[in-house]
């Protein structure tokens, strides 16, 4: 086990305490996400999909069970270690993009690189590569408010991939976009998955978005209710 399965959840239970009530969010969940998979998480509100995403991304700790990524148990790490781990291994994409409004597109993408020891010149190269990958060269000096929603999300994706993490987590990445922009973003994610072998875990409400994934997972009341691997679909959509 381990190496070939990039992400493995064993018996994961997550509960929250609200006053004296204990609210279960995930119960006894087992899941293996192999490296290079594009996983879509679906389910009604409160089904636990964002919590599952947070666990995989190393933002949250499981109450019981373990989350093992690349053979490393995330539960056993200190806050400093897990933060460092995230900076090296995970790229984040949010519904509302969450770009820093006071920074330009270039500076937003550069932000995670500032945590590394790369030289200024090398950082510049990487940022430009990432911006080119999302099709935004020439926009590097624009501020977020000067960009459209779809462009903002592409900057966010560039920011997510600039450190070359193996895992991208996306929470409703198309939830705030019009159909056309959403399609572009999804194609971009597919391309990153196929062309660069990024593992992607995406939470979505949108069935059409879910179609782009290579695997579809339905959650309800903290349990996996449906698991579907869709091997051949992505070629068809990509070519359309």
């Amino acid at each position: 086990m381990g190496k070939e399965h990039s992400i493995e959840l064993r018996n994961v239970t997550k509960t929250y305490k609200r006053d004296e009530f204990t609210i279960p969010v995930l119960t006894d969940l087992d899941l293996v996400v192999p490296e290079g998979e594009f996983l879509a998480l679906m389910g009604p509100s409160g089904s636990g999909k964002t919590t599952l995403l947070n666990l995989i991304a190393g933002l949250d700790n499981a109450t019981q069970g373990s989350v093992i990524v690349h053979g490393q148990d995330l539960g056993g790490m200190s806050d400093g270690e897990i933060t460092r781990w995230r900076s090296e291994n995970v790229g984040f994409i949010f519904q509302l993009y969450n770009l820093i409004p006071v920074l330009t597109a270039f500076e937003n993408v550069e932000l995670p690189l500032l945590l590394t020891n790369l030289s200024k010149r090398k950082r510049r190269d990487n940022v430009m590569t990432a911006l080119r990958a999302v099709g935004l060269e020439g926009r590097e000096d624009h501020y977020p408010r000067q960009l459209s929603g779809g462009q903002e999300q592409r900057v966010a994706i560039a920011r997510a991939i600039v450190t070359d993490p193996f895992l991208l987590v996306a929470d409703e990445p198309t939830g705030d976009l019009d159909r056309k922009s959403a399609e572009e973003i999804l194609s971009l994610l597919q391309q990153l998955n196929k062309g660069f072998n990024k593992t992607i875990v995406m939470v979505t409400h949108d069935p059409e978005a879910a179609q782009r994934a290579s695997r579809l997972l339905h959650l309800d009341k903290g349990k996996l209710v449906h698991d579907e691997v869709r091997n051949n679909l992505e070629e068809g959509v990509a070519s359309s």
Partner: protein
Amino acid sequence: MKFLHYVLRNARRSPVRSLLTIGAMSMCLALMMILISFLSVNDAVASSLRTYNRLVVMSSQGFAQPVPFARVNEIAGMKGVKHTTTFAWFGGKYHDEPMPFAQFGVSADSIFSIYDEFTISPDQVKAFADDKMGCVIGRKLAEERNIKIGDPLPLKGDIYPLDLNLTVRGVYDGPGTRDLRMCFFHWDFLNEELKRVSKNSKMTDNAGVVVVKCDSADRMVPLSKEIDNLYLNSATPTRTQTEEAFNQMFAEMFGDLRGMIRTIGLAVVMSLIFVSGNAMAMALRERTTEIAVLKAMGFQRPLVVNLVLTEAILVAFIGGLIGALGTKAFFDVVDLSKHSGGFLPFFFVPWPTAILGLGASLVIGFFSGIFPALAAARLSVINGLRKVV
């Protein structure tokens, strides 16, 4: 620092808030500078007197007690003494205005040799020496009251039962740390007049205090002991101290006012910590999601603390620059002493005080930023992100 441009942009993100914080900071620090300078000017001036090798001989029973005139010449004959002069406070009214400026009865021959930092043309010194009823006044006094050489300067006695109708024979100038509003007249003239009008011999032949110019700094301490020992068993014992210590004595008279000014200064610093801390906390509350994103991205807690602290210190420091250096520049241009009605001979913000103000702004910045910074570092990423979704 790689993150400086991010910190700078954050500080500018809400210009109104930053400007208001800077405004509060600079106003309050300006006040602090004024209050502290009020004390530190005295210290700065007292210590600047060190190089002139002057001693002041007063009665050991205080200013109200006389120092007999004979001592001026006795001391002049002592080893290591260059010159001596009487320095008798007249305290007269000018056109019925009580305590308008300081007036001293001096020895016209030696006064400007003793106070050699004062500049005055030799012609004027001679004109003053030649006119028994003449006087020399400071440049600022001449300018502010538009008194010219040759003008009359009538002084009405308050302590002494006589009036002096003097004529201005010269105007002296000098460094900014010296009182340029004094009036020097002939002590001999005062004494003659006193002998004429008063049957009471107690008032006459009083030198006031004796100012002694020494050959060298080394002679000052032994000489003061020699003088005091000489008169210890006389009817009027003396207390001799350096001019610096003598001036320091006046600063000490402020008494509890000094402590109070420090208390007010501290209260102002506390207030500014609350005020800018509040502004910083409000700024960060509006940026909760952003901080959560940074932390998700891999920004470690110490880095988050640093970013917030740097921002807080930066804003405070700008306030400090305006408040401390601005106040210094302001009083370098505007002469407050002119408007103090003779109460302050000089007023400026000494450099150490301005630096202290800058230092205070850094301290305020640190304490105003540290709690919001720690709160930001402790912020749960999940809660921070949830705010938006």
